[in-house]
């Protein structure tokens, strides 16, 4: 199956190459977009989105309302969104890498995973703080937190394998990313979300009150640009590493280095 020759894949490869090979333009561009997006979402989340509270039947305030703490939700879920996005990005990229061994796919996979580890840490920490606010415990084995933790463990394993597995690390890590990506729906079903396995538009977003959907999607969009900016920055490191390796090999060939 000549996957690497289909038009879509060739176009994708072209886009990625042009974006990563022009860091002086693309990095500031994405950072500016991210700054605008995050600033706009912060404003909307804190000044436009309504406060979340409710009254119970006796007319008293519902003690389990989150009030101000609900604001955590917006950037917690935005990060979680792109955590999953990164996992799929790394998985698809790894599949393409294993088919044609073009280093650009490997760059994207390892960059996406690194950024996903950082985003995952944010998701887990903010989720735990939110849990403390909502349920008064720092950790709960509730579905979303559990899923994020398991995914994060797969990603950390990927990073360790890349670092310590020697010359064929890219191959092994690619295999791990693919298996990890395929495992995501199983983890989803496993933690108790046995309704639709599609994108969680019934779990999380549907329970949002009126007036909260726009801030939510706005924050998701803002953090998308932040995620892409981080991925491009991280790809520069892999490109630099490859250049170091090539220069070293040339030096060894010339007899200059040992």
């Amino acid at each position, binding site marked *: 199956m000549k996957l690497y020759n289909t038009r879509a894949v060739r176009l994708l490869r072209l886009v990625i190459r042009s974006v990563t090979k022009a860091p002086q333009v693309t990095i500031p561009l994405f950072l500016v977009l991210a700054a605008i997006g995050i600033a706009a979402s912060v404003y909307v989340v804190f000044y436009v989105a309504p406060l979340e509270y409710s009254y119970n039947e006796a007319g008293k305030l519902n003690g389990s309302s989150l009030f101000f703490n609900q604001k955590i939700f917006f950037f917690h879920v935005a990060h979680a969104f792109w955590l999953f996005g990164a996992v799929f990005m790394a998985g698809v990229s790894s599949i393409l890498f*294993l*088919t044609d061994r073009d280093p650009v796919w490997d760059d994207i996979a390892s960059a996406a995973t690194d950024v996903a580890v950082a985003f995952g840490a944010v998701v887990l920490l903010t989720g735990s703080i939110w849990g403390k606010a909502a349920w008064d415990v720092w950790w709960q084995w509730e579905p979303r937190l559990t899923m994020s933790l*398991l995914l994060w*463990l*797969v990603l*950390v*394993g990927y990073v*360790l*394998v890349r670092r*310590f*597995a*020697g010359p*064929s*690390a890219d*191959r*092994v890590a*690619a*295999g*791990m990313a*693919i*298996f*990890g990506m*395929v*495992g995501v729906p*199983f*983890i989803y*079903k*496993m933690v108790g979300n046995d309704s639709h396995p599609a994108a969680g538009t019934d779990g999380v977003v549907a329970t949002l009150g009126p007036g909260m959907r726009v801030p939510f999607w706005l924050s998701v969009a803002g953090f998308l640009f932040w995620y892409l900016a981080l991925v491009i920055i991280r790809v520069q490191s892999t490109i630099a590493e490859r250049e170091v390796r090539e220069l070293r090999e040339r030096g060894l060939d010339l007899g200059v280095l040992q």
Partner: protein
Amino acid sequence: MAMFRQAARVAWKDLRIELRSREIVYTMVFFGALLVVIYSFAFPHEPRAVRGSVPGMLWVALAFTGTIGLGRAFDRERENDTMRALLLAPVPRLAVFLGKAMSTTALVLAVAVVCTPLLALFLDAPLFAYPGPMILIVVLGAIGISVTGSVFAATLLKVRSRDVLLPVILYPLLVPLFVAGTSCTAALVAEIPNFDAAWYWIHFLGIYDAAFLVLSIWVFESLVIE
């Protein structure tokens, strides 16, 4: 079909070597038994605690011994440099991989056959109350561990620090398997066994095994390069 027969032949080769020296199976089984003994000391024996902790004990024992078995099985190939011979043999590489997976499954099942009665004996756990679903879930679990484990053990054949990297790679990927196994076992040993839950998890593990088997078959060629 031919592929399956060739895979069975590779598996039988491994098992015959194993039967002669019995090195891996003895060490795996003994390690599993040791784990069970340690658990017996580490956890309380009252019935409620036992019902809660026995599923975890069984599956942790399977996980650890499975990793050891995988490592040893492929180490043996590398030490005797027979991996190249296997790959040069006129059988498709897929048959080699499937054969290795099958022999590892047999080894893990051997450990389960020893550890489950031991657990039932030492901790007085009703693991054999419903043998049908119990056997099914353990067999499915062994298949899952072996298939995914064989892919990565073969990939890591020539990689340094492979002994520590195999668990690092394997356990996060196998978490759904362990959760399914322990949940099903827990449902079966509970005071009022929950058969709906047990069959749900058996189905879940079956689909998981099928998905990862298909994925391994697709990805195996690209990952394992000699």
